[in-house]
């Protein structure tokens, strides 16, 4: 059984923006797009480790602030022809609140 952790209210994340969630040594970027969908990725671009949370969000993508790689928010993978993926984490939106799965992020943070 998954144990879901309450992260914040959806409205704590700006539309077409992101917040950083610290969990132990792990930074997770939690995104919200214009359709109020939420996504969670490790806050590290597969290119040079740029903080994806600081990028410009458009559609279901984010552009990395360092060198402009476009990353798919659903999969964490770079849009071709760039190659590489940021780790993605299960995320839920329920009752206007955003939830992350304790098990998956604990493994990563350990």
């Amino acid at each position, binding site marked *: 059984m998954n144990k879901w*952790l*309450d*992260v*914040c209210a959806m409205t*704590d*994340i*700006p*539309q*077409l*923006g992101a*917040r*950083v*969630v*610290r*969990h132990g040594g792990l*930074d997770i970027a*939690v995104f919200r*797009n*214009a*359709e109020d969908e939420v996504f969670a990725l490790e806050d590290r671009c597969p290119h*040079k*480790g*740029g*903080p994806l949370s*600081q*990028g*410009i*969000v*458009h*559609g279901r*993508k984010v*552009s990395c*602030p*360092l060198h*402009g790689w*476009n990353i798919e928010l659903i999969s964490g993978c770079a849009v*071709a*022809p760039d190659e590489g993926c940021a780790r993605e984490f299960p995320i839920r939106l329920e009752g206007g609140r955003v939830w*992350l799965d304790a098990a998956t*992020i604990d493994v990563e943070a350990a």
Partner: protein
Amino acid sequence: MDMSTPMGQGPKMKLVMVGNGMAGVRTLEELLKLAPDLYDITVFGAEPHPNYNRILLSPVLAGEQTVDDIVLNPLAWYADNGITLHTGKKVVKIDRSARAVEAEDGTRAEYDRLLLATGSNPFILPVPGADLEGVISFRDIADVDAMVRASGQYRHAVVIGGGLLGLEAANGLMKRGMDVTVVHIAPWLMERQLDEPAARLLQKSLEAKGMKFLLQKQTAELVQGGCSDSSPSGGGGRVAAIKFKDGDSAPADLVVMAVGIRPNTELAESSGLHCNRGIVVNDTMQTFDPRIYSIGECAAHRGIAYGLVAPLFEQAKVCANHLALYGIGRYQGSITSTKLKVTGIDLFSAGDFTGGEGTEAILYSDPIGGVYKKLVIKDNKLVGGVMYGDTVDGAWYFSLLRDGKNIDELRDHLMFGQDHCGNLGHQGINKAATMTDDMEVCGCNGICKGDIVKAIRDKGLFTLEDVRKHTKASSSCGSCTGLVEQILAVTAGGDYSATPKTKSVCGCTDHTHEDVRAAIKQNKLLTIPQVMAFMEWRTPNGCASCRPALNYYLISTWPGEAEDDPQSRFINERAHANIQRDGTYSVIPRMWGGNTTPSELRRIADVVDKYSIPAVHVTGGQRIDLLGIKKEDLPKVWADLDMPSGHAYGKALRTVKTCVGSEWCRFGTQNSTQMGIDLEKTFFKMWAPHKVKLAVSGCPRNCAEVAIKDVGIIGVDSGWEIYVAGNGGIKTEVAQFLVKVKTPDEVIEYSGAFLQLYREEARYLDRTVHYVARVGLDYVKKKILDDADNRRALYGRLLFALSVERDPWLERAREGKAKHEFEALSV
């Protein structure tokens, strides 16, 4: 039987392609990228080969490459992608009512969409003897095979046609050991690409290699060999000589007709599709039957059937997009240029090189050295050019031509090439060809020549855009673009051409920056969603390119009214600090005119200690940079510094650099420091299309380096000289003299008017140097010097825009604005 299926569900739709050449197969490649599972694809090719690079037939004929070298898609590619390939089968019928095609041998295939990529046929002169053995064209692998065979058996080759293709064929046959005569009807060679002087030089150097020429000769007849024929096979229906209308004749064991190509429209015409010098298509590459598309040399778009590869690949992209049911993208035609693929001969031509009424020509001619250049200029723009012997600047001229750049300022140096115009990264004749693979081409992204060549070869790239996408070369500062284009030309086969830059804002729209600005102004659009809805953006909320541009256009057009959207600003402008490679930030507080005080310096030192800031750096703009600050500390750092934002992170007014001027300097003529402070305080908080840097020197010794600033002021005895559009970055450019004024107030008004003109008219991310290069300094003078009312109005609008801006550090440090931006969450 009609077996059409509903779109998007059930069995796949059927796509049939007739023609298995470069343009068609490129369309399939693009389509498979976009929608790999949408269609069952069937391809008919009349030749027995898979898709190969037809451009490289010339090197194959010359023995420089083999047929295997030039195959682009091996048979395995078709199999891997589930494509049914019928090679050696010519389609002879389209049954449009049943939506099926039929090949000569009865093979039938039904289609939901049909793509005609039948290419072109060589034009065969209708003279007696044209059907003799030994009379061929130069179009496909079979022709090359025939020429190679003939070169082993016969001696005399005649090539009819002194154009690009004819000369390449003649060169190949000569390299194969034949005695080659080129027959040409015009007074000089390649008359569609060259003027007479360039053509004469070309002829001379080809003659030096052993090629013979018969110019202004019209072919009357090809004569069959009789019993007395001296050729080894001895007649038997083979050509032996060529006769001309003036009665002359010449021996000919092999005749290659290279007098032009005709779009292959036979199939389309017989099935009732509208053709007019090609299969007529619209901007989405559809024929008059919307289920039937056509691209490549057979297609006539706006009256032009293109024969070069780059335009055809642009067509392929558009066609694939529509076949994939995306329905975006239009093909709007291309400007093309030509290079001759004959080893050892450098020749380049583009645009209208003959000139005519209303044009001027700049000529350079060195007949002994074998160099000739002609540039044709109209209305201060390059409209055409021919180069022979030294073509290193071909790509640069072509980009000037394609972009319609105003060359007024370059005119004096234009003929001497880009190296003489102060640009970096383009030096050296045929540099691309002589570079080794480990030499760096793109300094921004660390890309070497080998990386680019490998990507071009492995991924089959043909356009600059493709190379940028796959390698990142030339995608940042762009100063290596010329070199990348050269590498592309050398590697991909020498045909060099590109589509005109339409300058749409980005891939989300076809509208230009100017369109967008006009719409925002005329319709009083105040938010990004409004602009996107009004201008029918193709993406739901744009991309990282267009959103920052739109945000700037909105706030600069409607200051105080338009919404400034932080989510559409690049992180630096959202966080009001510069992101560093490790994700920390740097902070540069403003020091008016480069002046500071003991208490400011003490506060800076205390902040560095308190927040354990790892690095302190003195910038080139007379300020202090604090590096390595954690994002969550930013508001506290700003509060403790208690200094104004330096905007070192923004497309905004950066620094105003000054010297100590007449207050201290024994040479100073004016109080440059105070002038700098006044300018900086007036323009503080100014957003702009790109960063803006100012400087003021107190005398012509110019210690503040004003010549490389967007606005540079030099104090002289009798007043102030104002220089504009200098640049010290990627493109070092010396500022141009705008005007001399008497008082500090005038300095501020004129400078402000210039900056507001730039703010209102430049494209987002253009520096002042790019803007002034585009509109010309005369235009700027007209708006600011000649029209005093306009100058004051511009300056007034700038002051109004500045009046609604607040110091972003103050708001965040003292008033808690945008708290969420700086606070991390934790679980």
